[in-house]
Protein backbone atom coordinates (compact mmCIF):
# COMPACT_ATOMS: atom_id res chain seq x y z
CA UNK A 1 0.00 0.00 0.00
CA UNK A 2 2.96 2.26 0.52
CA UNK A 3 4.10 1.73 -3.06
CA UNK A 4 0.73 2.85 -4.47
CA UNK A 5 0.87 6.29 -3.02
CA UNK A 6 4.42 6.88 -4.15
CA UNK A 7 4.92 10.37 -5.49
CA UNK A 8 6.55 11.13 -8.81
CA UNK A 9 9.50 12.93 -7.36
CA UNK A 10 10.06 10.08 -4.95
CA UNK A 11 10.18 7.76 -7.91
CA UNK A 12 12.66 9.97 -9.74
CA UNK A 13 14.99 10.18 -6.83
CA UNK A 14 14.74 6.49 -6.27
CA UNK A 15 15.74 5.84 -9.87
CA UNK A 16 18.72 8.09 -9.46
CA UNK A 17 19.67 6.31 -6.32
CA UNK A 18 19.54 2.98 -8.07
CA UNK A 19 21.30 4.11 -11.22
CA UNK A 20 23.97 5.96 -9.30
CA UNK A 21 22.99 9.41 -10.63
CA UNK A 22 22.82 11.47 -7.51
CA UNK A 23 22.00 15.00 -8.70
CA UNK A 24 18.92 15.36 -6.59
CA UNK A 25 20.78 13.73 -3.75
CA UNK A 26 23.10 16.70 -3.50
CA UNK A 27 20.08 18.92 -3.52
CA UNK A 28 18.77 17.11 -0.48
CA UNK A 29 22.12 17.26 1.23
CA UNK A 30 22.01 21.02 0.82
CA UNK A 31 18.54 21.13 2.22
CA UNK A 32 19.53 19.26 5.32
CA UNK A 33 19.13 22.23 7.60
CA UNK A 34 15.44 21.60 7.29
CA UNK A 35 15.68 17.83 7.83
CA UNK A 36 12.07 17.13 6.91
CA UNK A 37 11.32 16.68 3.22
CA UNK A 38 7.61 17.30 2.80
CA UNK A 39 6.08 15.41 -0.06
CA UNK A 40 9.34 15.15 -1.90
CA UNK A 41 10.61 11.72 -1.21
CA UNK A 42 8.94 8.49 -0.25
CA UNK A 43 10.91 5.73 1.43
CA UNK A 44 10.09 2.27 0.13
CA UNK A 45 11.28 -1.18 1.15
CA UNK A 46 13.47 -1.77 -1.89
CA UNK A 47 15.72 1.20 -1.19
CA UNK A 48 19.09 0.50 0.33
CA UNK A 49 19.19 1.23 4.05
CA UNK A 50 22.57 2.95 3.65
CA UNK A 51 21.21 5.36 1.02
CA UNK A 52 18.35 6.74 3.07
CA UNK A 53 20.76 7.72 5.84
CA UNK A 54 22.72 9.79 3.37
CA UNK A 55 19.50 11.57 2.45
CA UNK A 56 18.40 12.28 5.99
CA UNK A 57 20.86 11.60 8.75
CA UNK A 58 18.14 11.85 11.40
CA UNK A 59 16.91 8.46 10.28
CA UNK A 60 19.93 7.04 12.14
CA UNK A 61 17.93 7.63 15.31
CA UNK A 62 14.97 5.67 13.97
CA UNK A 63 17.13 2.74 12.93
CA UNK A 64 18.80 2.71 16.30
CA UNK A 65 15.44 2.63 18.08
CA UNK A 66 14.39 -0.39 16.07
CA UNK A 67 17.48 -2.13 17.37
CA UNK A 68 19.18 -2.20 13.96
CA UNK A 69 22.94 -1.70 14.09
CA UNK A 70 24.94 -0.05 11.38
CA UNK A 71 27.07 -2.13 9.06
CA UNK A 72 24.27 -3.47 6.87
CA UNK A 73 26.26 -3.18 3.64
CA UNK A 74 24.07 -2.83 0.56
CA UNK A 75 21.02 -4.55 2.01
CA UNK A 76 17.62 -3.06 1.25
CA UNK A 77 15.33 -1.83 3.99
CA UNK A 78 13.10 -4.89 3.52
CA UNK A 79 16.08 -7.24 3.83
CA UNK A 80 17.35 -5.52 6.96
CA UNK A 81 13.86 -5.68 8.50
CA UNK A 82 13.54 -9.37 7.68
CA UNK A 83 16.88 -10.09 9.29
CA UNK A 84 15.79 -8.32 12.48
CA UNK A 85 12.29 -9.84 12.36
CA UNK A 86 10.68 -6.44 12.09
CA UNK A 87 7.44 -5.62 10.29
CA UNK A 88 8.63 -3.79 7.17
CA UNK A 89 5.46 -1.72 6.67
CA UNK A 90 5.68 -0.44 10.21
CA UNK A 91 9.37 0.43 9.90
CA UNK A 92 8.61 2.23 6.62
CA UNK A 93 5.78 4.11 8.26
CA UNK A 94 8.03 5.43 11.02
CA UNK A 95 10.89 6.22 8.62
CA UNK A 96 8.51 8.20 6.41
CA UNK A 97 6.94 10.09 9.29
CA UNK A 98 10.41 11.13 10.44
CA UNK A 99 11.54 12.01 6.97
CA UNK A 100 8.44 13.94 6.00
CA UNK A 101 6.41 15.56 8.73
CA UNK A 102 3.46 16.04 6.40
CA UNK A 103 3.35 12.31 5.57
CA UNK A 104 -0.22 11.13 5.91
CA UNK A 105 -0.50 8.10 8.19
CA UNK A 106 -4.23 7.64 8.64
CA UNK A 107 -4.93 4.83 6.20
CA UNK A 108 -1.68 3.05 7.08
CA UNK A 109 -2.38 2.54 10.78
CA UNK A 110 -2.97 -0.92 12.10
CA UNK A 111 -3.58 -1.77 15.71
CA UNK A 112 -1.25 -4.73 15.32
CA UNK A 113 1.56 -2.18 15.39
CA UNK A 114 0.87 -1.20 18.99
CA UNK A 115 3.29 -3.53 20.84
CA UNK A 116 6.14 -2.77 18.43
CA UNK A 117 5.41 0.93 18.60
CA UNK A 118 5.58 0.83 22.38
CA UNK A 119 8.91 -1.00 22.24
CA UNK A 120 10.11 1.63 19.86
CA UNK A 121 9.01 4.47 22.13
CA UNK A 122 10.65 2.81 25.13
CA UNK A 123 13.90 2.61 23.20
CA UNK A 124 13.48 6.31 22.51
CA UNK A 125 13.06 6.98 26.23
CA UNK A 126 16.15 4.96 27.00
CA UNK A 127 18.10 7.04 24.48
CA UNK A 128 16.91 10.33 25.99
CA UNK A 129 17.42 9.33 29.61
CA UNK A 130 20.54 7.19 29.43
CA UNK A 131 22.47 8.86 26.61
CA UNK A 132 21.30 12.21 25.37
CA UNK A 133 20.50 14.09 28.58
CA UNK A 134 23.60 12.87 30.45
CA UNK A 135 25.69 13.87 27.44
CA UNK A 136 24.29 17.41 27.45
CA UNK A 137 24.80 17.52 31.20
CA UNK A 138 28.43 16.62 30.63
CA UNK A 139 28.79 19.38 28.04
CA UNK A 140 27.40 21.86 30.55
CA UNK A 141 30.02 20.69 33.07
CA UNK A 142 32.74 21.29 30.52
CA UNK A 143 31.30 24.71 29.80
CA UNK A 144 31.38 25.59 33.49
CA UNK A 145 34.98 24.37 33.77
CA UNK A 146 36.15 26.38 30.82
CA UNK A 147 34.23 29.56 31.36
CA UNK A 148 35.20 31.81 34.20
CA UNK A 149 31.76 32.96 35.17
CA UNK A 150 30.36 31.64 38.43
CA UNK A 151 26.81 32.25 37.15
CA UNK A 152 27.36 29.45 34.64
CA UNK A 153 26.69 27.02 37.48
CA UNK A 154 23.11 28.21 37.50
CA UNK A 155 22.64 26.67 34.08
CA UNK A 156 23.63 23.36 35.52
CA UNK A 157 21.00 23.59 38.23
CA UNK A 158 18.47 24.63 35.64
CA UNK A 159 19.28 21.71 33.37
CA UNK A 160 19.04 19.30 36.30
CA UNK A 161 15.57 20.61 36.95
CA UNK A 162 14.68 20.16 33.30
CA UNK A 163 16.08 16.61 33.30
CA UNK A 164 13.92 15.72 36.26
CA UNK A 165 10.83 16.90 34.41
CA UNK A 166 11.67 14.74 31.41
CA UNK A 167 12.41 11.75 33.62
CA UNK A 168 9.12 12.21 35.43
CA UNK A 169 7.20 12.53 32.17
CA UNK A 170 8.76 9.45 30.63
CA UNK A 171 8.39 7.44 33.80
CA UNK A 172 4.69 8.22 33.84
CA UNK A 173 4.41 6.83 30.33
CA UNK A 174 6.43 3.72 31.14
CA UNK A 175 4.71 2.96 34.43
CA UNK A 176 1.15 3.94 33.66
CA UNK A 177 0.36 4.78 30.05
CA UNK A 178 2.12 1.94 28.24
CA UNK A 179 0.97 -0.78 30.67
CA UNK A 180 -2.59 0.50 30.24
CA UNK A 181 -2.36 0.33 26.45
CA UNK A 182 -0.78 -3.12 26.46
CA UNK A 183 -3.42 -4.41 28.88
CA UNK A 184 -6.18 -3.05 26.65
CA UNK A 185 -4.52 -4.59 23.62
CA UNK A 186 -4.14 -7.93 25.42
CA UNK A 187 -7.71 -7.97 26.60
CA UNK A 188 -9.04 -7.41 23.10
CA UNK A 189 -6.88 -10.32 21.94
CA UNK A 190 -8.54 -12.55 24.51
CA UNK A 191 -5.71 -12.51 27.05
CA UNK A 192 -6.14 -12.57 30.79
CA UNK A 193 -5.13 -9.10 32.00
CA UNK A 194 -4.96 -7.22 35.26
CA UNK A 195 -8.23 -5.23 35.27
CA UNK A 196 -6.63 -2.75 37.63
CA UNK A 197 -4.54 -1.48 34.71
CA UNK A 198 -7.63 -0.69 32.64
CA UNK A 199 -9.02 2.16 34.67
CA UNK A 200 -7.55 4.84 32.42
CA UNK A 201 -8.42 6.45 29.13
CA UNK A 202 -5.87 7.74 26.67
CA UNK A 203 -7.40 11.19 26.94
CA UNK A 204 -6.24 11.32 30.57
CA UNK A 205 -2.67 11.57 29.33
CA UNK A 206 -3.01 13.99 26.50
CA UNK A 207 -1.74 17.51 26.83
CA UNK A 208 1.23 16.44 28.81
CA UNK A 209 3.86 17.25 26.23
CA UNK A 210 4.07 20.99 25.99
CA UNK A 211 5.37 21.39 29.54
CA UNK A 212 8.60 19.51 28.90
CA UNK A 213 9.38 21.83 26.00
CA UNK A 214 9.15 25.02 28.02
CA UNK A 215 12.42 24.80 29.95
CA UNK A 216 14.30 23.49 26.95
CA UNK A 217 13.31 26.59 25.04
CA UNK A 218 14.21 28.82 28.00
CA UNK A 219 17.68 27.31 28.20
CA UNK A 220 18.25 28.04 24.52
CA UNK A 221 17.11 31.62 25.00
CA UNK A 222 19.36 32.08 28.02
CA UNK A 223 22.43 30.78 26.18
CA UNK A 224 21.75 32.70 23.00
CA UNK A 225 20.43 36.00 24.25
CA UNK A 226 20.86 36.58 27.94
CA UNK A 227 23.97 34.92 29.29
CA UNK A 228 26.85 37.41 28.95
CA UNK A 229 29.71 36.64 26.53
CA UNK A 230 31.88 33.85 27.94
CA UNK A 231 35.51 32.90 27.57
CA UNK A 232 34.41 29.51 26.31
CA UNK A 233 32.52 29.62 23.07
CA UNK A 234 33.01 26.07 21.88
CA UNK A 235 31.02 24.27 24.57
CA UNK A 236 28.39 26.96 24.66
CA UNK A 237 27.79 26.29 20.95
CA UNK A 238 27.94 22.53 21.42
CA UNK A 239 25.28 22.73 24.12
CA UNK A 240 23.09 24.73 21.78
CA UNK A 241 23.55 22.29 18.89
CA UNK A 242 22.57 19.47 21.21
CA UNK A 243 19.57 21.35 22.58
CA UNK A 244 18.25 22.06 19.09
CA UNK A 245 18.79 18.44 18.19
CA UNK A 246 17.09 17.23 21.36
CA UNK A 247 14.15 19.53 20.74
CA UNK A 248 13.73 18.28 17.19
CA UNK A 249 13.98 14.70 18.32
CA UNK A 250 11.54 15.11 21.21
CA UNK A 251 9.12 16.72 18.78
CA UNK A 252 9.35 13.72 16.48
CA UNK A 253 8.98 11.38 19.42
CA UNK A 254 5.91 13.21 20.70
CA UNK A 255 4.58 13.30 17.14
CA UNK A 256 4.62 9.49 17.06
CA UNK A 257 2.72 9.38 20.34
CA UNK A 258 0.19 11.95 19.22
CA UNK A 259 -0.28 11.03 15.58
CA UNK A 260 0.09 7.26 15.67
CA UNK A 261 -0.19 5.84 19.17
CA UNK A 262 -3.10 7.97 20.39
CA UNK A 263 -5.40 7.35 17.39
CA UNK A 264 -4.65 3.62 17.60
CA UNK A 265 -5.50 3.51 21.28
CA UNK A 266 -8.74 5.39 20.62
CA UNK A 267 -9.66 2.65 18.15
CA UNK A 268 -8.98 0.04 20.84
CA UNK A 269 -11.04 1.95 23.38
CA UNK A 270 -13.95 2.17 20.98
CA UNK A 271 -13.72 -1.54 20.28
CA UNK A 272 -13.59 -2.33 24.00
CA UNK A 273 -16.65 -0.14 24.62
CA UNK A 274 -18.56 -1.95 21.85
CA UNK A 275 -17.58 -5.35 23.25
CA UNK A 276 -18.75 -4.20 26.64
CA UNK A 277 -22.16 -3.35 25.30
CA UNK A 278 -22.74 -6.69 23.58
Amino acid at each position, binding site marked *: MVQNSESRSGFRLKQQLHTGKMDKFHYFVKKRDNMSHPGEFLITGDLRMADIIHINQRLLLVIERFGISLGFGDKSIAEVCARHQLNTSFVLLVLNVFNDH*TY*SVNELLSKEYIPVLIDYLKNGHRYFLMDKLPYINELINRFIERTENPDSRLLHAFFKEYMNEVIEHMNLEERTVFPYILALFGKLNGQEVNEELLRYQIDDFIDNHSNIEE*KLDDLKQLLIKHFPPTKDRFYRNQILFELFDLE*YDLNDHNGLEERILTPLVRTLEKEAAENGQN
Partner: protein
Amino acid sequence: MGKTKVLVVDHSEIIRQGIHSILKVQSFNYEVSFSDNTREISELMRSGNVDVLLVNPSAYFDSKGERIKLLRQEAINFGFKLVALVYAYFDEQLLSLFDEVIAINDEEEKIFNKLEKLIEAGNTTTEEEGAAISQRELDVVRLVALGKSNREIAEELFISIHTVISHRKNITSKLGIKSVSGLTIYAVINKLISADDFNKTM
Protein backbone atom coordinates in the same frame (compact mmCIF):
# COMPACT_ATOMS: atom_id res chain seq x y z
CA MET B 1 -7.63 51.80 -2.53
CA GLY B 2 -5.16 50.21 -4.93
CA LYS B 3 -5.02 46.62 -5.94
CA THR B 4 -4.34 43.95 -3.35
CA LYS B 5 -0.95 42.43 -4.01
CA VAL B 6 -0.86 38.71 -3.41
CA LEU B 7 2.46 36.91 -3.42
CA VAL B 8 2.15 33.15 -3.85
CA VAL B 9 5.03 31.05 -2.55
CA ASP B 10 4.67 27.52 -3.77
CA HIS B 11 6.83 25.45 -6.08
CA SER B 12 3.90 23.96 -8.01
CA GLU B 13 3.12 25.72 -11.26
CA ILE B 14 -0.39 24.22 -11.24
CA ILE B 15 -1.09 25.76 -7.85
CA ARG B 16 0.32 29.13 -8.83
CA GLN B 17 -1.69 29.31 -12.02
CA GLY B 18 -4.75 27.99 -10.22
CA ILE B 19 -4.64 30.73 -7.57
CA HIS B 20 -3.95 33.28 -10.25
CA SER B 21 -6.97 32.34 -12.33
CA ILE B 22 -9.31 32.01 -9.33
CA LEU B 23 -8.50 35.52 -8.14
CA LYS B 24 -8.62 36.96 -11.67
CA VAL B 25 -12.03 35.46 -12.34
CA GLN B 26 -13.46 36.69 -9.06
CA SER B 27 -12.19 40.25 -9.06
CA PHE B 28 -10.01 42.76 -10.87
CA ASN B 29 -8.72 43.92 -7.55
CA TYR B 30 -5.93 41.40 -7.19
CA GLU B 31 -2.44 41.49 -8.49
CA VAL B 32 -0.91 38.05 -8.21
CA SER B 33 2.81 37.32 -8.38
CA PHE B 34 4.89 34.25 -7.59
CA SER B 35 8.27 33.52 -6.18
CA ASP B 36 10.20 30.74 -4.59
CA ASN B 37 13.37 32.70 -4.20
CA THR B 38 13.82 33.49 -0.51
CA ARG B 39 15.78 36.67 -1.09
CA GLU B 40 13.31 37.99 -3.63
CA ILE B 41 10.44 37.22 -1.26
CA SER B 42 12.02 39.09 1.60
CA GLU B 43 12.85 42.08 -0.64
CA LEU B 44 9.26 42.23 -1.84
CA MET B 45 8.01 42.11 1.76
CA ARG B 46 10.32 44.87 2.89
CA SER B 47 9.47 47.15 -0.01
CA GLY B 48 5.80 47.02 0.93
CA ASN B 49 4.89 45.19 -2.25
CA VAL B 50 3.03 42.41 -0.48
CA ASP B 51 -0.43 42.70 1.06
CA VAL B 52 -1.08 39.00 1.32
CA LEU B 53 1.60 36.34 1.47
CA LEU B 54 0.14 33.00 0.48
CA VAL B 55 2.59 30.27 1.39
CA ASN B 56 2.70 26.54 1.51
CA PRO B 57 3.77 26.12 5.15
CA SER B 58 5.67 22.93 4.44
CA ALA B 59 8.12 25.03 2.42
CA TYR B 60 8.86 26.86 5.66
CA PHE B 61 8.79 23.92 7.97
CA ASP B 62 11.49 23.23 10.53
CA SER B 63 11.75 21.55 13.91
CA LYS B 64 9.87 24.11 15.96
CA GLY B 65 8.37 26.19 13.23
CA GLU B 66 11.00 28.87 13.85
CA ARG B 67 10.89 29.99 10.22
CA ILE B 68 7.12 30.26 10.36
CA LYS B 69 7.37 32.31 13.55
CA LEU B 70 9.84 34.53 11.74
CA LEU B 71 7.35 34.98 8.90
CA ARG B 72 4.71 35.86 11.48
CA GLN B 73 7.02 38.50 12.91
CA GLU B 74 7.71 39.90 9.44
CA ALA B 75 3.98 40.00 8.75
CA ILE B 76 3.59 42.18 11.84
CA ASN B 77 6.61 44.35 11.04
CA PHE B 78 5.77 44.95 7.40
CA GLY B 79 2.01 44.90 7.79
CA PHE B 80 0.91 42.10 5.51
CA LYS B 81 -1.44 39.18 5.98
CA LEU B 82 -0.02 35.69 6.23
CA VAL B 83 -2.09 32.91 4.68
CA ALA B 84 -1.27 29.21 4.67
CA LEU B 85 -1.97 27.05 1.66
CA VAL B 86 -2.13 23.51 2.94
CA TYR B 87 -2.08 20.29 0.94
CA ALA B 88 -2.04 17.77 3.78
CA TYR B 89 -1.92 17.40 7.53
CA PHE B 90 -0.09 20.22 9.20
CA ASP B 91 0.64 21.00 12.81
CA GLU B 92 -2.36 22.91 14.20
CA GLN B 93 -0.27 25.02 16.49
CA LEU B 94 1.84 26.27 13.63
CA LEU B 95 -1.23 26.92 11.53
CA SER B 96 -2.51 29.16 14.30
CA LEU B 97 0.35 31.53 13.44
CA PHE B 98 -1.33 32.27 10.13
CA ASP B 99 -4.06 34.84 9.67
CA GLU B 100 -6.02 32.44 7.51
CA VAL B 101 -5.74 28.91 6.16
CA ILE B 102 -6.72 27.90 2.66
CA ALA B 103 -6.98 24.17 2.03
CA ILE B 104 -6.15 22.70 -1.32
CA ASN B 105 -9.71 21.43 -1.72
CA ASP B 106 -11.47 24.69 -0.81
CA GLU B 107 -13.97 25.84 -3.43
CA GLU B 108 -13.23 28.87 -5.54
CA GLU B 109 -15.73 31.03 -3.74
CA LYS B 110 -14.51 30.01 -0.32
CA ILE B 111 -10.93 30.92 -1.15
CA PHE B 112 -12.04 34.26 -2.46
CA ASN B 113 -14.21 34.99 0.57
CA LYS B 114 -11.45 34.12 2.99
CA LEU B 115 -9.13 36.58 1.30
CA GLU B 116 -11.75 39.33 1.13
CA LYS B 117 -12.57 38.98 4.80
CA LEU B 118 -8.92 39.14 5.71
CA ILE B 119 -8.32 42.33 3.77
CA GLU B 120 -11.32 44.00 5.33
CA ALA B 121 -10.21 43.13 8.83
CA GLY B 122 -8.09 45.77 10.51
CA ASN B 123 -4.52 45.20 11.58
CA THR B 124 -4.09 43.69 14.98
CA THR B 125 -1.38 44.89 17.30
CA THR B 126 0.73 42.56 19.36
CA GLU B 127 3.43 43.21 21.92
CA GLU B 128 6.64 43.23 20.00
CA GLU B 129 9.12 40.47 20.68
CA GLY B 130 12.57 41.66 21.68
CA ALA B 131 11.32 45.10 22.75
CA ALA B 132 13.20 46.69 25.62
CA ILE B 133 12.08 45.60 29.06
CA SER B 134 10.76 48.36 31.33
CA GLN B 135 11.89 49.13 34.88
CA ARG B 136 8.48 48.05 36.19
CA GLU B 137 8.80 44.74 34.41
CA LEU B 138 12.26 44.26 35.92
CA ASP B 139 10.71 44.78 39.36
CA VAL B 140 8.26 41.99 38.56
CA VAL B 141 11.06 39.72 37.28
CA ARG B 142 12.95 40.26 40.53
CA LEU B 143 9.97 39.31 42.66
CA VAL B 144 9.10 36.30 40.50
CA ALA B 145 12.72 35.19 40.85
CA LEU B 146 12.44 35.48 44.61
CA GLY B 147 9.62 32.97 44.45
CA LYS B 148 6.76 35.39 45.16
CA SER B 149 3.26 34.62 44.02
CA ASN B 150 1.27 36.97 41.80
CA ARG B 151 -0.71 38.10 44.82
CA GLU B 152 2.42 38.93 46.83
CA ILE B 153 3.90 40.79 43.87
CA ALA B 154 0.70 42.81 43.50
CA GLU B 155 0.77 43.77 47.17
CA GLU B 156 4.42 44.71 47.15
CA LEU B 157 4.18 46.88 44.05
CA PHE B 158 0.73 48.32 44.87
CA ILE B 159 -0.78 47.10 41.61
CA SER B 160 -3.63 44.73 40.81
CA ILE B 161 -3.12 41.01 40.20
CA HIS B 162 -4.45 41.61 36.72
CA THR B 163 -1.61 44.08 36.06
CA VAL B 164 0.94 41.60 37.42
CA ILE B 165 -0.34 38.96 35.02
CA SER B 166 -0.15 41.36 32.12
CA HIS B 167 3.42 42.33 33.07
CA ARG B 168 4.35 38.68 33.22
CA LYS B 169 2.95 38.06 29.76
CA ASN B 170 4.95 40.95 28.37
CA ILE B 171 8.09 39.79 30.16
CA THR B 172 7.77 36.34 28.65
CA SER B 173 7.28 37.68 25.17
CA LYS B 174 10.10 40.21 25.49
CA LEU B 175 12.69 37.89 27.02
CA GLY B 176 11.52 34.65 25.43
CA ILE B 177 11.66 32.97 28.86
CA LYS B 178 8.59 31.17 30.20
CA SER B 179 9.60 29.21 33.29
CA VAL B 180 10.10 30.69 36.74
CA SER B 181 13.54 29.09 37.05
CA GLY B 182 14.51 30.56 33.70
CA LEU B 183 13.46 34.01 34.88
CA THR B 184 15.40 33.42 38.07
CA ILE B 185 18.58 32.83 36.11
CA TYR B 186 17.89 35.95 34.10
CA ALA B 187 17.50 37.86 37.37
CA VAL B 188 20.84 36.58 38.71
CA ILE B 189 22.71 37.30 35.49
CA ASN B 190 21.34 40.83 35.51
CA LYS B 191 22.10 41.31 39.21
CA LEU B 192 18.44 41.75 40.13
CA ILE B 193 18.91 39.13 42.83
CA SER B 194 22.00 37.47 44.27
CA ALA B 195 23.11 33.93 43.55
CA ASP B 196 22.31 33.07 47.18
CA ASP B 197 18.70 34.02 46.62
CA PHE B 198 18.76 31.76 43.60
CA ASN B 199 19.87 28.78 45.63
CA LYS B 200 17.01 29.38 48.00
CA THR B 201 14.34 29.30 45.29
CA MET B 202 15.65 26.43 43.15
